[in-house]
């Protein structure tokens, strides 16, 4: 039996959902907030997407994808101090140039297989940490554009997001 009270609660609930424009919850225990992609500077074909994500149950973010109309490829990346970086030479890479020998705050980007999402904890993808890397952009990302981003999790869940392109973080 639907009482007046539950109707009221439902109305409040939907109001909250609507007013909370920067957060999306697919009722699958996953919440994403503050998603944004950086407006492309001139002369670059790479981009980055950031967001805060919370999973009710322990999970892992294992892959990301965007339509080909946005970029050829999307990957999970992380910025790390050079001393902590996976040795690229070991992975078959060749260092073309090393300048001045790594003394001060040198950082490098690396691909990560997954991002751990401990139960209930908010994990931030943000500048200087994790990001969704967009490679070979189909066209420069402009303020006002929206990117459709699909997240896939270790649990098998997926989550589709609409990510606004912005000049700076929300």
């Amino acid at each position: 039996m639907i009482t007046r009270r539950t109707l009221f609660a439902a109305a409040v609930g939907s109001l909250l959902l609507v007013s909370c424009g920067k957060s999306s919850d697919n009722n699958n225990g996953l919440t994403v907030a503050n998603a944004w992609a950086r407006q492309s500077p001139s002369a670059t074909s790479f981009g980055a997407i950031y967001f805060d994500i919370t999973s009710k149950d322990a999970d892992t973010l294992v892959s990301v994808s965007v339509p080909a109309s946005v970029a050829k490829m999307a990957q999970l990346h992380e910025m790390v101090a050079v001393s902590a970086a996976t040795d690229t030479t070991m992975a078959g890479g060749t260092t073309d140039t090393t300048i001045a020998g790594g003394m001060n705050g040198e950082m490098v980007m690396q691909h990560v297989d997954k991002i751990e999402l401990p139960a209930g904890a908010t994990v931030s993808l943000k500048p200087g940490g994790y990001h969704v890397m967009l490679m070979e952009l189909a066209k420069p990302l402009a303020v006002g554009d929206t990117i459709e981003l699909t997240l896939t999790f270790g649990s098998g869940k997926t989550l589709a997001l609409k990510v606004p392109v912005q000049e700076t973080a929300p």
Partner: protein
Amino acid sequence: MTALLALAITSLVGCGSADTTRIVGVQRTPAIEVGAVSLPEVTNSDTGSPFNFWADSGSLLVVYFGFTNCPDLCPTTLADLRTARKRIGSTADIVDLALITVDPVRDTAEVLRSYAGSFATRFHVLRTTDLHALATVETAFLASSSVTTLADGTVSVSHTASAYVVDSTGRVLVEWPFGIGAKGMENDLRILIKQLKESTS
């Protein structure tokens, strides 16, 4: 030196309250001097003319080592600087920018100009394929970088993520570690601009 730097960064992180009289970036003692080194400036010509690392008289020069295919650190820092200058307003017109590519093979003069123009109206873009010359300048700033071609053919670039504010004598007044944000830059630039105005008036 390392301990001092760690201390300075710790105080930066702990600086929650708005003490607008204190620099939040790193100030080394003694200050780093970079006026003796130069790189080719390709802002107005592809061949380049020597650019020395000092600000014009009455100006401040922000120096950044980066590359245009950098998706994260470089656009974050350069956009933060743009925001800081915008918030300060017209007094920030004396803040100049020198952007040095650590990836000269891919960053042509034309690419650099176009890229820098997204973040500033007043800038110098610097490029050399003489890696010895680049190393000399990086060493002067206590910075470093590398370019690596990975097994899958992608190019991986590492670089020091700090920005430096240099005065007209070639002295580094403040070093901004990555993550200082537009707010930190705005705070420090306001203080440095005020000090500069006082010393020249």
